């Protein structure tokens, strides 16, 4: 015996029972409350289509709200709780809503709650609290979900007899097969309706087929739902490795499969349709096949006095099963005129259908039927109903398949498909049945059980003009509940068709979109949770930095040191100290994340002069220069440096943040626009670690390290540090004499340590991004993102003088558009606080507070040695406005600072400090 609790009550279950089966076994009929009116609800089905019996299962971070009791196998220690009721399931105050239900027809909320939005916000609070089924989760999920790819020749969905045979045929033909079944057992229909197949009892036969599939290398997955069938037969499967709320036995709680199949075979079976009559939602009104499942598979008889109501032959099997289990079949109401089941020994009434059920939260007590036009009542405690069978065509439709109308079955069946998908078994050929519309008072006849949509609601919507089936759904919320209309869509179409006087296919059809059954969000994510929610890229020197306990910066995917605080230093204090050590002595900084490309070949210059807006061809071997790149629309999108290492070999660097964009762009230009050039472009971003060494002592440090005179500004030499060959490039981002040392990242730590030793000896320190920002802002160097924001031309950024006058660079052709000539476009300027205060980064530039913005602060820093707030900014017509006074105004931070516009180069504008 398995022990579990339901609403705190300790209960037991037999192995293999679903929660629904176990509850019925204990005579518990009331399981939940409906969404809108809080009507008492029991168990309608025995499968994934269940609209009523939803519970929260599990506790803490494992609690899963809205779990279908019919699709949940009881495990030892399971804690299940009913939902959407207060204080308890049997006395739910929300059920008072039923009293005012008459004033709350479909779409009532569109017609009231007028007034200012704040008022709606007030009403909404109560509506939201009343709505929403299960409790909101609070804790993080302690379990893990796997994601896995699989490939096969044939994927079979549904391990009923048709699916098993299709899978076996494929396996015997030598194909790779995957067979999936949402149930815990293979061929669940054979457990409901035991029969012999190929001389074996059904379930034995099913097990032997599965064994054969496995022996032939196939995969058989139970408790696995094919939730989505996408383009080119890409199928998503969600496999429950343990039940909802259960502690996993292995590493994972669920596995989400991404399958690519040459062929998909859908053996998805059918869903039984409810009948529509008054109070058809009462506990004790169940689908006929579900009743049979509980009786035959789970050994539970859900009622002792049963009325079977049907429009087809299948329900007679239910009557028989009930009789065999000892229940009394009070009557079989058969809507069809011709005698059926006459020889069954049941009290069969033809032209008979239920009109209204009696009873309340404790279950039905009787049913009134219309028999050949006359009403007659029966006492009963269970109504088993069957309105025919709807093929599960969801996946077929997701794959772009069309539907055909099967008149005999009154059902849509799979039609032509675009993808290699076919449907077999009852999903392709459902059993004949008739439909006869709704009976009884329309306001009590439920179509969508969970969302409380009645026939009256459908009629109202239709009368108000919401006649397309999609309007009807959206206006009434039919089919929008957690069961996604599995038991309600056909009844709604039937109702529209009857109102319009047409056949169901003309009434329309709703489209099915993934997922077929709801999929755990955790499964969609796999292991990408918590700190692994997105990749983290670590530079080669990551461990070395980590040992210094820096303040880290998440720069895109990268982890970079922002500052190395000493003692109790704040970020700002550490950044300023580090910046000052660069200004006064020397510092070293990890710049390994820079984008780097090796460009080689006789046509390398041609290539580079297409990509770079500056000249490149004039560079001598051993020299480098600052450069920048325009998009095809003429606006600057990145910058960097280009170095001529050999005759036909260049190194191009560009921004960290733009690295992958630049890699794609260079590849596009090379392969699409310049396919005939003799050039090779290789991304070496990760191959080269790079360390910037900056400050007045830097050339001395480099000379000491390399044993040779350091190269002059914008020159490069190939030398060695700590025995490691390095490219020593004299370039400065800080405004000081500075170098970038590029070298094979395998030796990153050795080179860093060697340089750091000398830097420390020279009175310097390592510095992070914070100091780098202060240094470059004071110097007026630009950064891709805030300063180079993709909206300005080179001229506007103050780079006009460096543009290659000969043209030929990409973007030149579109730069002649007339509005670019407007002198009031934004331009890059420097600004400095005139009366003290600190210029807030991002603040708007205004002439007076209260006026419109004419620009904004892109980067804010300070004069590193002498103090005083300075910043870079984009300002309308800024180049002509040097000397003008404005306000940097930040209403969100309540700061306003008076500033003077000027050159962006605050520090050593003539570049004296680059020279030794």
């Amino acid at each position, binding site marked *: 015996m398995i022990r579990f609790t339901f609403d705190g009550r300790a209960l037991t279950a037999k192995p293999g029972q679903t929660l629904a089966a176990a509850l019925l076994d204990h005579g518990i009929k009331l399981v939940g409350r409906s969404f809108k009116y809080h009507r008492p609800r029991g168990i309608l089905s025995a499968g994934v289509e269940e609209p009523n019996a939803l519970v929260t299962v599990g506790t803490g971070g494992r609690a899963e709200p809205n779990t279908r009791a019919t699709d949940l196998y009881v495990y030892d220690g399971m804690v299940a709780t009913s939902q959407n009721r207060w204080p308890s399931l049997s006395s739910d105050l929300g059920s008072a809503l039923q009293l005012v239900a008459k004033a709350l027809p479909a779409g009532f909320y569109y017609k009231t709650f007028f007034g200012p939005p704040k008022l709606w916000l007030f009403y909404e609070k109560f509506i939201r609290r009343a709505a929403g089924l299960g409790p909101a989760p609070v804790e993080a999920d302690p379990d893990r979900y796997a994601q896995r790819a699989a490939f096969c020749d044939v994927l079979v969905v549904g391990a009923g007899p048709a699916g098993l045979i299709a899978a076996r045929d494929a396996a015997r033909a030598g194909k790779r097969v995957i067979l999936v079944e949402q149930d815990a057992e293979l061929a669940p229909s054979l457990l409901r309706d035991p029969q012999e197949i190929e001389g074996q009892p059904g379930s034995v036969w099913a097990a032997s087929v599965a064994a054969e599939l496995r022996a032939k290398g196939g995969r058989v997955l139970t408790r696995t739902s094919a939730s989505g069938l996408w383009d080119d037969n890409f199928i998503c499967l969600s496999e429950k490795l343990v039940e909802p709320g259960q502690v996993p036995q292995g590493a994972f709680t669920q596995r989400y499969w*991404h399958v690519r199949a040459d062929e998909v075979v859908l053996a998805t079976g059918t869903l039984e349709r409810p009948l529509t009559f008054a109070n058809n939602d009462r506990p004790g009104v169940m689908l006929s096949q579900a009743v049979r499942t509980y009786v035959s598979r789970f050994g539970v008889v859900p009622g002792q006095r049963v009325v079977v109501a049907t429009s087809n032959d299948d329900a007679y099997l239910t009557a028989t099963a009930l009789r065999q289990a000892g229940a009394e079949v009070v009557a079989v109401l058969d809507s069809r005129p011709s005698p059926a089941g006459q020889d069954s020994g049941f009290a069969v009434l033809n032209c008979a259908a239920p009109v209204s059920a009696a009873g309340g939260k404790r279950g039905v007590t009787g049913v009134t039927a219309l028999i050949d036009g006359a009403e007659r009542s029966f006492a009963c405690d269970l109504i088993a109903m069957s309105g025919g069978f709807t093929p599960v065509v969801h996946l077929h439709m997701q794959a772009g398949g069309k539907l055909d109308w099967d008149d005999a079955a009154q059902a849509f069946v799979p039609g032509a498909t675009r993808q290699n998908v076919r449907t077999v078994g009852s999903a392709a050929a459902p059993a004949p049945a008739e439909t006869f519309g709704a009976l009884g008072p329309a306001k009590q006849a439920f179509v969508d059980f969970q969302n409380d949509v009645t026939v009256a609601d459908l009629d109202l919507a239709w009368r108000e003009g919401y006649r397309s089936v*999609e309007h009807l759904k959206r206006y009434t919320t039919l089919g929008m509940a957690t069961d996604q209309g599995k038991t309600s869509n056909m009844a709604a179409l039937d109702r529209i068709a009857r109102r319009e006087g047409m056949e169901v296919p003309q009434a329309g059809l709703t489209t099915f979109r993934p997922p077929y059954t709801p999929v755990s969000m955790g499964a969609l994510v796999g292991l990408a949770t918590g700190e692994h929610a997105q990749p983290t890229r670590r530079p080669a020197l990551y461990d070395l930095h980590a040992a210094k306990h820096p303040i880290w910066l998440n720069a895109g995917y990268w982890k970079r040191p922002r500052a190395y605080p000493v003692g109790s230093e704040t970020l700002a204090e550490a950044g300023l100290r580090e910046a000052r050590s660069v200004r006064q002595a020397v510092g070293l900084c990890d710049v390994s994340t820079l984008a780097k490309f090796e460009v080689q070949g006789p046509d390398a210059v041609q290539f580079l002069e297409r990509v770079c807006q500056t000249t490149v061809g004039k560079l001598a071997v051993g020299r480098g220069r600052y450069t920048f790149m325009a998009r095809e629309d003429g606006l600057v999108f990145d910058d960097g440096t280009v170095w001529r290492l050999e005759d036909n070999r260049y190194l191009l660097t560009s921004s960290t943040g733009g690295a992958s964009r630049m890699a794609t762009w260079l590849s596009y230009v090379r392969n699409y626009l310049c396919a005939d050039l003799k050039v090779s472009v290789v991304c070496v971003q990760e191959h080269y670690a790079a360390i910037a060494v900056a400050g007045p002592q830097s050339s001395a440090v480099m000379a000491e390290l390399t044993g040779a005179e350091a190269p002059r500004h914008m020159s490069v030499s190939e030398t060695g540090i700590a025995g490691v060959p390095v490219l020593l490039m004299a370039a400065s981002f800080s405004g000081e004499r500075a170098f970038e040392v590029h070298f094979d990242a395998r030796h990153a730590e050795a080179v860093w340590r060697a340089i750091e030793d000398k830097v420390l000896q020279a009175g310097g320190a390592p510095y992070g991004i914070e100091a780098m920002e202060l240094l470059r802002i004071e110097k007026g160097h630009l950064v891709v993102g805030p300063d180079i924001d*993709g909206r300005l031309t080179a001229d506007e950024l103050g780079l006009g003088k460096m543009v290659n006058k000969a043209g030929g660079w990409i973007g030149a052709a579109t730069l002649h558009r007339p509005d670019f000539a407007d002198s009031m476009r934004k331009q890059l300027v420097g600004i400095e606080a005139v009366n003290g205060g600190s210029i807030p980064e991002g603040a708007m530039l205004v002439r007076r507070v209260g006026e419109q913005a004419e620009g904004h602060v892109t980067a804010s820093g300070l004069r590193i040695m002498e103090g005083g707030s300075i910043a870079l900014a984009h300002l309308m017509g800024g180049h002509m406005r040097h000397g003008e006074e404005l306000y940097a105004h930040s209403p969100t931070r309540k700061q306003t600072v008076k500033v003077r516009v000027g050159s962006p180069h605050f520090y050593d504008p003539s570049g004296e400090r680059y020279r030794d």
Partner: protein
Amino acid sequence: MAKYSALSLLRGAFNGQSHWQPAWRHPDPKASYDVVIIGGGGHGLATAHYLAKNHGITNVAVLEKGYIGSGNTGRNTTIVRSNYRLEPLSRFYEFSLKLWEQLSDELNYNVMFSPRGALTLGHSDGDMIRLAEKGDAMAVQGIDAELLTRDQVMKIEPCLDFSHDARFPIEGGMIQWRGGTARHDAVAWGFARSADSQGVDIIQQCEVTSMVVDAGRVVGVETSRGRINAGMVAICAAGHSGHVAAMAGLKLPVESQTLQAMVTEGVKPMVNTVVMTQSLHCYISQSDKGGIVFGGDPDNWPSYAQRGHAVTMELAVQQGLALIPALSRLRMLRTWAGVTDMSFDGSPIIGSTPVDGLWIDGGWCYGGFKATPGSGYLFADTLANQRPHEIIAPFSLDRFERGSPVDENGTGPFPNHR
């Protein structure tokens, strides 16, 4: 138009709600209209409503190839806000937001505009500065924007992951309290009911198959329900803008791509505001029915299929779970996809076209829903006066060839680079 009110609902309680009249007619098209609007989504219907209401132009047809609101109006994540960085955008969306604030009363149809706050999270100091920049840009125009500390965010949305080792640590945020959500279908229905009551013909199941051009001027359309002459033709076709414009020989700066969204099963209230983030691409809110509504990036490749890419949705959920780990045990209930007309600067295209008699309201990328009343109002004004309204002048079709894109992200002319 019979008035909707609590009282009339109550009256219905005693008559079985039998007194309700159709919200709109189902007329056959007339031979000719002053204005033919192609597309019966929110934008087309709003334009018709404002043409009638503000300009007395009621000889108007709205042609819809399916049923009204069946395109992006019914396929979005229902977010309404005006928190944009660039002035032309925030100015326009603020105009629209002000209309939202009175829309239910104006239409006598509750569109459930819920100003619960549009919260943008910042995950780094850099994010916080960009948020402040956006907030400052809004505030100098008189638009509400409030910077939030981490503690303030924690009070507003306790369900977020505030742990310090979170992949996307929360440093703070910016909130526009007047932003929020609205009931998307109701917007189409409310505008339709109002336009219809003013005499506008809403013609469903009517697909435009070609344009009738006479001496360089569009004078009508051929449709699946016959020819309809028109004084002016206005395209409000969202993702199909390019397809419709091509009927008049026009090539637009748009590319149609799929944008997906999804909703979980409903639970009791847990997400209070609309949660967005400065450095990720997902946006999360909770519907009145309790479902957590998720949106992410567009699929970034052209498609007219209204059918998304499985992996795009997984990436959006990945980000959402990083922000709200407790969502892990909820289940994705439904996904849907819309065809968006991605313009080449991320901003809309409204106004005249080089073809006489043909006007366009499109290029909304994935920002069209919140624009609905604003663009309807201003496009109607533009049509009535045969010149762009000043607020939408920056969004003219010719801005690309002139060199004046309104590029909020600064990412240039390729939508998939955004």
